[in-house]
């Protein structure tokens, strides 16, 4: 198992009468694309701000790149690039000068670094434009460029596709995948656009009202969400016997209403229909059911409310 880049244990953040994070445990391992999922106000940004050092937890501890001591944690933040909520910049300075400012600040050698990150995020032609003149999507790209300065080992992005147009979303997705696969950058990103996360995340953390409901790998989630097939048959008992004989290892449930549910389909749905037909069993209906990430999230969120 890869080493933990972020290890948050028992993190709590209390604002007067509001508990933004309630004993949160989150682990992000090297090489992962970790999708932090939650509604607005779930505590995603609060968690990212704590990792970025902008705010302090009321309780618990944070280990970053294996460091737990406060000074060492702060120092190790130089190995990280972050875009939390909005990209901060000096509005009257150009995109290029803003990035140059941060390059100098972080002691990153080589003036060409700025040009290189601007090219990576497709903002090179706007380099002389004042930051205040950028559109929302371009500000997001600027924020990503800032986060990428100095080739960080960990990239932390809060709602990175906010304000991007459809082609911008595709570019962002491809860029994040490329950074993760080619440069082995660990990525922690939060979003409430689950369909986007579903396409790139390798690990998920579900956060609701300041509580982590579940941490699950994409592989495990796929297995949990794998489709099931409902077959409404004239003779379900006979079909169950056929299944056990012809396709041993198939998990199924006999439901009411003469329905058999295959919960781990290893074959195409048509194969199960054909099997019934071959054995003279009438098929009155065949439904394929899949659980999307969205359905899964709604399910566990509702479970969390109970």
């Amino acid at each position: 198992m890869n080493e933990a880049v972020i290890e948050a244990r028992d993190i709590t953040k209390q604002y007067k009468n509001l508990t933004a994070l309630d004993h949160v445990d989150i682990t992000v391992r090297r090489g992962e694309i970790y999708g932090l999922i939650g509604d607005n106000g779930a505590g995603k940004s609060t968690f990212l701000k704590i990792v970025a050092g902008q705010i302090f937890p009321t309780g618990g501890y944070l280990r970053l790149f294996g460091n737990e001591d406060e000074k060492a944690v702060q120092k190790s933040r130089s190995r990280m690039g972050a875009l939390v909520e909005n990209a901060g910049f000096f509005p009257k300075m150009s995109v290029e000068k803003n990035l140059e400012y941060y390059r100098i600040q972080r002691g990153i050698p080589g003036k060409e670094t700025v040009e290189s990150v601007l090219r990576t995020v497709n903002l090179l032609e706007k380099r002389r434009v004042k930051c205040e003149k950028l559109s929302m999507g371009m500000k997001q790209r600027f924020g990503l460029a800032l986060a990428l300065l100095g080739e960080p080992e960990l990239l932390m992005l809060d709602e990175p596709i906010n304000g991007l147009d459809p082609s911008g979303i595709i570019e962002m997705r491809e860029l994040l995948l490329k950074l993760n696969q080619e440069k082995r950058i660990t990525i922690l990103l939060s979003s409430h656009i689950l369909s986007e996360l579903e396409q790139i995340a390798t690990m998920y953390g579900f956060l609701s009202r300041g509580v982590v409901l579940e941490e699950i790998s994409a592989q495990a989630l796929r297995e949990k969400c794998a489709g099931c097939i409902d077959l409404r048959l004239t003779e379900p008992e006979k079909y169950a016997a056929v299944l056990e004989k012809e396709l041993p290892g198939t998990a199924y449930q006999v439901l009411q209403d003469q329905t058999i549910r295959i919960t781990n389909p290893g074959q195409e749905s048509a194969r199960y229909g054909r099997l019934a037909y071959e054995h003279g069993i009438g098929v009155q209906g065949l439904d394929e059911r899949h659980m999307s990430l969205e359905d899964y999230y709604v399910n566990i969120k509702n479970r969390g409310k109970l």
Partner: protein
Amino acid sequence: MANYMKSECYRILHEKTIYLLTLTMASLLVLMNVVLYLFSAYAPGFYYGTLRFSFIMLISDMEVFYIGAFLVVMLLSSDEYKNGVLKNAVAGGINRVHMFIGKCIVYGITAMVSAALILAAFISTAYLLLETDFSIPLESTLPLKVLLLGAAANVPFSLATVVLTMALYNIFQKDAQVGIGCAVIMYLIPTAFRLLGFQIPICARIAAWMPWNFVKTEVSAAFSIIQMDALWMHPEGFLKEMIAGAVGIVLFGALGIWGFRKKDIA
């Protein structure tokens, strides 16, 4: 910290803010000399178009250096809080204490360079436009000496004002609150102590060490159109200004570090 200071220098040099502030303040002081010159040239019986009078105007209002230092910090750092720039520095791994100290040093130097340029513009236009009787011993040099020594003596507390303004930004983050905080600490508290001092002797002794009080009372009280004397013209007075400034830097510095170390940045 060196990198942080370098980046701040880069920003200050590439933004227009400090140039505009310096130009505006220099213009105001030059304008004062121009007005004095025009009146003396075109209004018979106007006796104030002299180098001495022009310099006295500034010498008797030395607290203008503190206000200038406050303005420099306010204009340079308010954008950082409004636009979320500071959070990037923190997320980039820069130590907060180093940030605070680095900022104070860079803004302090900026304020001094700006003040030097403003003074140069003021002094040169005064010598160019206004009358002085070079036949009277010291008439053309004494006011300049008092002014320059006054400026030097007020450097420590001007730097303390830079540190105080930065400290208050770290605590409050909003321009209005910082402005009010500075006014209270720099002006209202010293004034209150001075007034209380009329009844309570200990308050008078404390008030005497507060810069806003001594640059007002111990300078203007000692002035006359013939005689020219000021607190900082005497070694003990100069030392008093130095000590008050140093104490201010230490106290406000401690306040700033305390306020920033555990402050949540929105």
